[in-house]
């Protein structure tokens, strides 16, 4: 990842030329149709998550044992009362998946901003201050790489019991390393640039240099990274719930549904298959949006893709 020439040129335009308005800049972005599609689909997911109680046809935890293991509607013996069938306890799969969307997005909405804030702060500290802070941070990042996050999560769950809070804790601790590394790298090159030396030579404080000159140049990178981390976060939540150390059983999540459906793979394919498709769809849209944003924000990469 590298900084964009255009970004620093507009932020520190030496000639003080007027900057194009936000609307003009938005209009200049290429590839709007694709981008709009990704954003729309993502917003749809968010809508499903927010309005889960309204949209879900059934209570996701309501069991009806006589109706257990009903196949989806389009299969023989399926019925539209249970569009995606029922699980081994006769719970409605569609309703559980709708509530699962809520959990997945909740983890994203809480986990990613906290992870970003922590990672960026650490990266700024290490990159700008250097020296001891940098050494300590880079060893911590190595530690995160050498200690599997999943195992850490299993240990945490053994200490505190499975909960959504623990899932987010694991995501923040292990996810922040990615931000810290990237931000550190960018800061190392930014702080040697002319506009930073210029700011320093006119007596700008460290705080001001970071806030006014370094951070604005990091925004693009961080936004792209956050978008690409959406899929990672969803994966971690799903994997932890799959291992039984994620969300508690009263909160249906996609990973948990896959884990429960695993035992019925021979007779009820839809139980492990359908929640996974939801994970793939949401991760795919988030990744596509991230790639699109990177191309938009960093024109130099465009011809490489």
């Amino acid at each position, binding site marked *: 990842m590298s900084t964009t020439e255009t970004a620093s040129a507009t932020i520190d335009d030496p000639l003080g030329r007027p900057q194009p308005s936000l609307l003009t800049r938005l209009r200049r972005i290429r590839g709007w149709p694709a981008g709009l599609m990704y954003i729309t689909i993502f917003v749809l997911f968010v809508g499903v998550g927010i309005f889960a109680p309204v949209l879900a046809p059934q209570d996701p935890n309501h069991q009806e044992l006589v109706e257990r293991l009903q196949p989806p509607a389009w299969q023989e013996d399926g019925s539209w009362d249970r569009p995606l069938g029922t699980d081994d306890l006769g719970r409605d799969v569609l309703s559980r998946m709708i509530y699962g969307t809520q959990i997945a997005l909740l983890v994203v909405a809480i986990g990613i901003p906290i992870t970003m804030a922590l990672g960026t702060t650490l990266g700024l500290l290490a990159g700008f201050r250097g020296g001891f802070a940098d050494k300590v941070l880079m*060893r911590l990042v190595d530690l995160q790489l*050498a*200690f*599997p*996050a999943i195992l850490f999560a*299993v240990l945490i769950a053994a200490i505190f019991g499975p909960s959504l809070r623990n899932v987010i804790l694991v995501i923040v601790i292990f996810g922040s390393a990615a931000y810290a590394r990237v931000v550190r790298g960018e800061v190392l090159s930014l702080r040697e640039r002319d506009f930073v030396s210029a700011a320093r030579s006119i007596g700008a404080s460290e705080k001001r240099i970071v806030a006014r000159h370094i951070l604005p140049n990091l925004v693009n990178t961080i936004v792209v990274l956050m978008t690409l981390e959406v899929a990672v976060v969803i994966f971690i939540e799903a*994997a932890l719930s799959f291992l039984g150390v994620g969300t508690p059983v009263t909160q249906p999540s996609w990973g948990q549904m896959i884990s429960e459906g695993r035992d019925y793979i021979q007779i009820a394919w839809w139980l492990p298959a359908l929640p*996974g498709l939801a994970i793939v769809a949401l991760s*795919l849209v988030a*990744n596509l949006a991230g790639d699109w944003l990177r191309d938009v924000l960093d024109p130099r990469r465009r011809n490489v893709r």
Partner: protein
Amino acid sequence: MDANFTRSLIGRLIQSALVIFLVITLVFIAVRAAGDPITVLAPFDASPEAVEEIRQHYGLDEPLPVQYLAFIWNAVQLDFGDSFRTGQPAMNEVVDRLPATLQLGAGALIFSVLVGVPLGVISAVKRGTPVDAICRFVALIGQATPNFWLGLMLILVFAVYFGLLPTGGTGGIRNLILPSVALGAVTLAAVLRLTRSGMLEVMESDFIRTARSKGLTERVIIWRHAIRQALLPVLTILGIHVGRVIAGTIVIETVFSWPGIGRLMITSVGSADYPVVQAAVFVVAIVIIAANFIVDFSYRFFDPRIRAAA
């Protein structure tokens, strides 16, 4: 081997040792917070005296700092104590399981490179064609699919539906196929994308133009000249992915009932078997760090410019 090289090698070794020290310290704290092994070690109706005796036997009555120092002292000698469950040395239990995990990890990495590199090259050479579109779609799906779910779907299709391959367990190369594919898919996607973008970049460079003007065939240019340059970033990403693949074995081994370290870790945490958890985390950390180490230094030999700079 100049002095610079030796110095950076020693520096890296010291850093690695420090990281391993941090890893085992963290796991020491975590397992002790996770549960009291007495619940596993002592029979349910054991008398308080008997429980106390067991505590003393395993050194669990000592204050934590003393336990910690003893732990580090023994760890340096690769002694992690005996498993609470089986009574065998914990290190032996882990080392017994290591080949299975390494097999699975190697299978995943080999699969990702053998499929990812050619697809990436083809995708770049046939840029803008339907072939390129399909390759990019494969990469996108690979990145968006959780490995454990992919594993289950592979079982569903190839084992349950077609009955071609076993659902899990060990035995032969046929048992290794599905778990390797499931575990390697994410790495494959990354390798494909990086190979593609690397090739696109390299094909524009001067030395390729020179090769073309010499009249070399396109095949020689691509597979002999361009690919060497394009694969450098792939090497780096493989180093990073070794850690992910090893971490991924924890879930994949559960899905495919694979008797490796991953499953051993999960069951040992469940039964508060400290010595085994500690030994397993130690071995996993060593494998990950060693892999990154090898990648970093092999990089120098692949790229003469880095060798000169170092």
